[in-house]
């Protein structure tokens, strides 16, 4: 089977791997880069559990060919906390009971991060829109919406 080299940065660290031609970024991250924070919930692009940031943009790693992103900057939930210190967004998810089984959480937080990176003071509707590609079966979404809004408020206070 043809192997294709892919170089990328994962949460700031340089990586070089060989993947099967046609392998998805999800497969690359989980099986080669051992980043198990990225979850495969459907492989159909319909649940959002595999959401990552590629060059700062939210993408579904299950539908992304690894070899198409040679040279890309990949960010996942595993890289969010710096030196073990959680980001305001992560803390807000924990504090607002926005996570139950935890399986959707990595993708959900990345979707929320993508929102806050672009729009630090979102409205409730902005948050609803931002997480609309991510399925959660446990929480009923309301705690997630509250967590994201609360993180935005906390960021604003922190920045002031």
């Amino acid at each position, binding site marked *: 089977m043809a192997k294709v080299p892919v170089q990328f940065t994962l949460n700031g660290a340089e990586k070089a791997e060989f993947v099967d031609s*046609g392998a*998805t970024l999800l497969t690359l991250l989980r099986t080669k880069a051992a980043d198990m924070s990225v979850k495969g919930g459907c492989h159909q692009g319909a649940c959002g559990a595999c959401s990552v940031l590629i060059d700062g943009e*939210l993408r579904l790693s299950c*539908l*992304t*060919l690894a070899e198409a992103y040679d040279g890309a900057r990949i960010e996942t939930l595993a890289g969010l906390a710096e030196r073990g210190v959680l980001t305001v967004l992560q803390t807000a998810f924990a504090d607002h009971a926005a996570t139950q089984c935890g399986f959707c959480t990595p993708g959900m937080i990345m979707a929320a991060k993508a929102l806050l990176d672009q729009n630090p003071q979102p409205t409730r509707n902005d948050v609803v829109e931002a997480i609309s590609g991510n399925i959660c079966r446990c929480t009923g979404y309301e705690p997630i919406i509250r967590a994201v809004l609360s993180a935005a408020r906390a960021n604003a206070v922190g920045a002031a």
Partner: protein
Amino acid sequence: MALTVKTFAAVSDALPALQAVGARYLGGGTLLVRRVNEGDISISTLVRVSGPSLSRIAVSDGRAIIGASATMAAVARHPDLAFLRPAAHAIGGPAVRNMATVGGNIFAPAPYGDFAVALLALDAAAEIAGKPITLADLIEHRKQNGGRIVTAVSLALPKPGAFRFVKITRVKPNGLAVLTIAAVIEERDGVVSAIRIALGNMADRPIRARAAEAALVGRPLTREGIGPALAVAGDGAAPADDAVASAWYRREVLPVHLGRLLLAKG
């Protein structure tokens, strides 16, 4: 056989590779890679064209040219395409919109393809091998499009307020469509002077509601004025049953939603 990806710098170089059995052109991947993941072994080669030229969006002299690889997100944030924002936003969630392409949407089977409904109402043209083809023709024959690559779509910018779009979903904000309606409406002297209405999920591809269009020309956009058009809104439609809604339901609510769209303040 194992999956292979073939990457080319230019569309012309990619065309021969597309002739092979099992070869498919890869746009944003939101539908094609999904099929591969789900075990569609009829797909054995993914042909892709790298480079930014296919993603260009240019707006000038009242026309927009949108590269086939431009994403829904790129369309939505383009300052000169604000009227298209609702249609681009109707596609998936944010991650999907960062991936799904304008070209890919033209080929998306129902219940997907809401953006193509907008393009059809806008009477857009697609570009294949440097030659224009109307979107209506392309959609009509899209299943026979194997081996060709759409490089861009172009369209005349509608007058301010002339373009209307609605996607009816069960799940909000971004579920699959029960149906989608796009319309470009020109009014003169209080009556409709010209109108194009395109419908999504009322057939296996986006279609024009030509009977309704004809019934609206020369009539005011009032409840009484649109009555005849609503009565024929579903003429020529052949909606399907799917997980979201039945053909019966789609036919029943099409006039309701078309009426609301037509009567909405532009």
